[in-house]
């Protein structure tokens, strides 16, 4: 029996195990939506295509599965671009299906035509324009394969309308045959042997771990390696949930807003083991003073990240899970030397413990005004260990990374690479779609919240009980902080001085709104929100000019932190 292109699309999605898709209809995908009407695939209608992409992204980050998006041609497609770039920068597996004008019209500036393949070429792992229905099953198969293997990433398929209605006999390929794409899985054994030797010879080792560890589902392997060797672990923003932050070996985040002890450890270490991290400029600060006393081992699935920003003494390309467990086994073969290593690194551990004591991660407490960090600590106290936390971008994001003691992988969803304001709410939505019974909380700023606040409607419509904590400082706080510190307090265009009634806004959408400006009500507001069914906005009127500290000024080494304002 023959099937149409749009039927084939939906069938392929099912064969790929897709249960939920996020999207928004339009003329160029109306056939797909017609077939969706009868499909077991659940479609979540967001209020903006950008939010559909962030939704699929949050779904993917929380589950590890491929997120799927459908959008129409032209403006629908262009609205997805920020979402796609966000996913690309953080290596999130995703497949985006865009409608396109019929093939004979492509290139004619037809109504709602946009060259989305051209526009997304630099922000997708790969993309396709389907020009013949016979290519469609293969392209879909490849798209899912490419999205989830190797270093994951978004793959876009541009599907012209005439191909959606064309028909053919359908069969789905069992395997892909991509001559140019063969990711390296197992690391080179000799390199791993060398790494084991370097680890055993180290006196001041540090593990520097990035988002790749989460993507590779290798958090257990990391914990095992760290505990066995007693090597302290610093995590990037993307890996805060990858290592239990209350663990004695945890150093917290490093970099621009990293802890004093993480930044000092990296500066003083003699061996830096980078795992699934990419030496981002927000992490390294001034590059020539970054870990300059250390030999560097860099483990990553993507060879292009190696030696991109810093020199590396020992590169290991491969799947992190595979490499870490091999490395652990190699070390276990010499367990007598591991005891020696632990002895030899005792002074190092003592140094770090001293740094932790003299410069703990802390903030000035207050009884009269709500400190944003205090709200975050309270949210942590009152939520379950498996609660999923998303953030927007700004000060609240950094405070969450600093003060929310994550314990479980895939519980922290944040836009690290692109730093996209407006990400957190739709990402939380996507995570709640994946896990209807877990607590999902978007920690937000008043600025970022307004970038995708329309998604309250989606939350209410689908009964997704996401809780949103707005740390309202009536400022674009992070930019204001820079203006305070580096531009003589000239607060140009960062004061959002129109007081918005977020409680009424919540109510207008049929959600619940709570507000407080009193320190002693913070706890009860959070508890009340958690106890209330359905989506809730909690608005906390916080200290307006609180700063994120420590801070490494631009152009400085990460040991040159500003510790107090």
């Amino acid at each position: 029996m023959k099937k149409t292109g749009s039927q084939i699309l939906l069938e392929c999605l099912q064969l790929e195990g897709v249960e939920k898709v996020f999207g928004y209809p339009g003329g160029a995908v109306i056939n797909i939506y017609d077939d969706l009407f009868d499909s077991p695939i659940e479609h979540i209608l967001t209020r903006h295509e950008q939010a559909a992409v962030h939704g699929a992204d949050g779904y993917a980050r929380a589950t590890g599965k491929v997120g799927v998006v459908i959008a129409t041609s032209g403006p629908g497609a262009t609205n997805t671009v920020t979402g796609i770039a966000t996913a690309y920068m953080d290596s999130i597996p995703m497949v985006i299906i865009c409608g396109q004008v019929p093939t004979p019209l492509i290139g004619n500036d037809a109504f709602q035509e946009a060259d989305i393949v051209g526009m997304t070429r630099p922000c997708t792992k790969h993309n396709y324009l389907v020009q013949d229905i016979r290519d469609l099953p293969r392209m879909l198969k490849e798209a899912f394969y490419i999205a989830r293997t190797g270093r994951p990433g978004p793959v876009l398929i541009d599907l012209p309308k005439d191909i959606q209605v064309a028909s053919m006999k359908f069969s789905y390929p069992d395997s892909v045959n991509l001559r140019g794409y063969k990711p390296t899985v197992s690391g080179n054994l000799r390199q791993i042997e060398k790494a084991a030797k370097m680890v055993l010879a180290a006196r001041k080792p540090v593990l520097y771990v990035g988002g790749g560890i989460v993507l590779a589902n290798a958090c257990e392997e990391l914990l095992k390696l760290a505990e066995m060797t007693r090597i302290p672990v610093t995590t990037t923003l993307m890996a805060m949930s990858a290592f239990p932050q209350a663990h004695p070996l945890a150093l917290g985040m490093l970099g621009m807003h990293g802890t004093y002890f993480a930044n000092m450890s990296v500066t003083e270490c003699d061996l830096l083991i980078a795992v699934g991290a990419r030496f981002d400029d927000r992490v390294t600060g001034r590059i020539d003073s970054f870990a300059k006393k250390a030999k560097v081992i860099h483990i990553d699935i993507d060879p292009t990240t190696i030696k991109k920003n810093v020199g590396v003494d020992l590169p290991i390309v491969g799947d992190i899970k595979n490499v870490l467990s091999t490395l652990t086994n190699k070390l276990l073969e010499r367990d007598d030397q591991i005891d020696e290593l632990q002895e030899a690194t005792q002074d190092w551990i003592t140094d770090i413990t001293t740094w932790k004591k003299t410069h703990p991660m802390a903030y000035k407490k207050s009884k009269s005004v709500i400190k944003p960090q205090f709200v975050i600590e309270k949210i942590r106290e009152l939520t379950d260990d498996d609660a999923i936390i998303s953030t927007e971008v700004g000060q609240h994001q950094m405070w969450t990374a600093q003060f929310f003691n994550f314990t479980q992988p895939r519980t922290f969803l944040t836009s690290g690479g692109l730093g996209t304001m407006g990400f957190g709410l739709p990402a939380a939505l996507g995570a709640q779609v994946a896990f209807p019974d877990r607590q999902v909380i978007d920690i937000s700023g008043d600025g970022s919240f307004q970038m995708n606040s329309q998604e309250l409607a989606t939350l209410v419509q689908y009964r997704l009980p996401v809780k949103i904590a707005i740390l309202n400082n009536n400022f674009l706080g992070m930019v204001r902080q820079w203006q305070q510190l580096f531009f003589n307090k000239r607060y140009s265009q960062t004061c959002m001085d129109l007081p918005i009634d977020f409680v009424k806004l919540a109510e207008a959408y049929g959600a619940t709104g709570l507000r407080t400006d009193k320190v002693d009500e913070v706890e009860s507001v959070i508890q009340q929100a958690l106890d209330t069914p359905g989506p809730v906005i909690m608005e906390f009127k916080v200290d307006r000019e609180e700063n994120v500290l420590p801070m490494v000024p631009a152009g400085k080494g990460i040991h040159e932190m500003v510790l107090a304002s």
Partner: protein
Amino acid sequence: MKHTISVLVENEFGVLSRVSGLFSGRGFNIESLSVAPTLDPDTSRMTIVTRGDDRILEQINKQLNKLISTIKVVDFTGEDFVERELALIKVSTETENRAEVLRIVDIFRAKVVDVTARSYTVEITGAPAKINALLELLRPMGIKEIVRSGPVVIGRGVKGVAG
């Protein structure tokens, strides 16, 4: 330093812009690029001439390899290879220099492929340096137009580069 890189790619929609976009998006420079299908019509071979230090070249190589459409990347720098470029040169020929142009063309084993009363069009194949040398000599005669293909390269010896 100058590098000449051969890239075998899938002969498919958009592949050229993937490669050129990679260069422009990362601030790498393309000095010349030529592309055509190989014996296998599903595969194209690009020859790219670029410049950069070792670190940049390592990135270029890795980034090219990372493209899904890329099958193989070979940097010929430091290898033994044959390099050839084609140029077509339109020279104005007033009466007094017609003979001189022909003489130069002859010395370079180039060919005149089109003649009018006031011009010769010269075809030359060779290493880029040879073409440059010819251009230097023809320049005083008055060059009206020039088009160069950019070099293509192939390794010496029996070993071949295949997908």
